[in-house]
């Protein structure tokens, strides 16, 4: 795996308080040798983009289960662009209906993960994004 030594920002945009998925993935990334910055709850897209740029992370994971992913993801990607940080891969995890998954990918998200996926598989997908 090429996750070792990589820096990740795991973020909770918006008001959603469900942080299980974010923390489980953060723990798994850490165990795989990556460095993880977790924002905690209730962060604005502006804040998340700023931290991602300042900390010069290698990738960003956004976790949203409140149904407001469309706006929050688009806003975060827009803020990343404004900070010239749009080259960082963005992953999204949460309760995301199939039709919205396509829309998020069109907006620039590299991959969307849902609760039923195995953590191992999620990490493999992230890993492959770096391998190429």
């Amino acid at each position, binding site marked *: 795996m090429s996750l070792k030594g990589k820096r990740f920002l795991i973020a909770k945009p*918006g*008001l*959603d*308080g*469900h*942080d*299980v998925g974010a*923390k*489980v993935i*953060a*723990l*798994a990334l850490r165990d795989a040798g990556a460095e993880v910055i*977790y924002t*905690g*709850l*209730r962060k*604005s897209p502006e804040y998340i983009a700023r931290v991602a740029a300042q900390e010069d992370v290698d990738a960003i994971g956004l976790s949203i289960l*409140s*149904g*407001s992913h*469309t*706006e*929050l993801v688009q*806003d975060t990607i827009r803020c990343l662009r404004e900070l010239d940080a749009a080259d960082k891969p963005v992953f999204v995890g949460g*309760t995301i*209906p*199939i039709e919205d998954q396509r829309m998020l*990918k069109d907006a620039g998200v*590299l*991959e969307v993960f*849902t*609760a*039923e*996926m*195995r*953590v*191992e*598989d*999620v990490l*493999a*997908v992230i890993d*492959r*994004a770096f*391998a*190429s």
Partner: protein
Amino acid sequence: MTDAKSDRTASMRTHSEQQQPGMPSTQTPSAIEIPVVVTPDMVPTRDPSLPGEYPFTRGIYAEGYRRRLWTFRQYSGFGSAEETNTRYRFLLDRGQTGLSVALDLPTQCGYDPVDPMARPEIGKVGVSLSNLSEVEILFDGIDLSRTSTSFTINGTAAMIYAMYLAVADKQSVPREKLTGTIQNDILKEYVARGTWIFPVRPSMRLIADTVLFSNEETPRFNPISIAGAHFRDAGVTAVEEMGYTLADGLAYVDELVKRGGDVNQFSRRLSFFFYVHMDFFEEVCKFRAGRRLWARLLKERYAVTDPDALRFRFGVVCGGSSLTAAQPYNNIVRVGIENMAAVLGGAQSIFTCAYDEAFQIPTEKSAELALRTQQIVAYESGVARTVDPLGGSYLVEWLTDRMEQEIEKVIGEIEEYGGAVKAIEDGYLQMRTAQRARLRKQSTDSGEQVVVGENYFRHADQKNDFGEVFHLDPQSVKRVLKKYEQVRDRRNNKAVTRLLNRLGEAAAKDSENLMPYLIECCHAYATIGEMVTTLKQQWGEFVEPVRF
């Protein structure tokens, strides 16, 4: 970059597609090893108490459901107050016996709809109730003297309770007639669910204010519902769910005693709330053990003597994270089994999740089916005919004893750490919960815990089609914003400012009960954001300890 699409397909494939699982586990999810058979000599300390008698293992009332069936209370709310009012009338029309209000995140976290943090979340996971006029619309045509209403509200529970009282005033319903519940359990919000606002200590004060006020003014109302459900859905076991909840309960009792409350009085109105997941006997015994342990703790530690103050009243939700997006119709069966466990465990109110509830706002059709599930259990199955029908079963009595011991151990660990308040301020319970969530995920990922349709018994071309899709009316957000502006234009802004100042001054003094001030503010159409901002100026905001 690799082709994202093929990655996705690869990651969705499970190891077990062609495989059958092994024999079902001999352990419960709380890691209690279940014997092949339980014999009478394994239950030496059989509890001789009858239902309605201390320590209430078999139930809090002598006649159980013969006295009264549980309340059928489906959690519901979305978009604007108008749409939610329509859904309530639909559910009441189909035989629901209590309302349960789901609020949107801005209302729960104390933001007005116009706040930039609120905009993307308006009406998404519940109804938007930013001020009294919205609550008036919500209960339009619903008689509050005859309808019991539960609000899943925590950070802003005091404000929503104040709005509810203001609507009752306007409907000329005497306060002593009001029945219902506000969740008002902030401690678990810091660990799971996350709708905290203020730091822990002033939040505890606000909760004590609501409980003490409610005991006097709305004696039939439950001013708190101490909840384990959200710990559970965040990853912990049934044993920990009950242990964390009772530890929180003790923290509230301590706070209320400190405030001069009479434990024999306020304990009569403490209520509880749990999840029911799939391990049938563990769930039944969790409730029997919890009932017995809570009564014993109150009696032994606080010398509570009033039997009503020792009765462990609880509501449940069947579903949550035990439901899957994979093969969603399987969820109907799961909820039916969980519903049975809730009844055999003696719940006072039950919410059965719709099979699509974990992924979308239920449609009318799925919501009706969830309600019908309860009605079938209540009226066709016959399980409510006698109190605690499983009482005396060797397994059930053995497992009740075992779970009680395990739960008490968990409470002991929290107390050793310094109690629930400290464990939460430090992020200790948050860390334990996150680690437990990881273990739970590992056990389903590895196939050790079987989830039918998700990690076993899938079919090759499986699509997670859950039938009808709910779409929120795109106009409802616009409606919420427009109404908000209208209220702000119409009200007496000078009066609002004066009342908010009074609220702020009262908040600065620990001895003042804030409820009368909040009710005044609500009557004047002060908004939730204004009231919360006023209190934040006095108390500051919670800073999340990030530990995992």
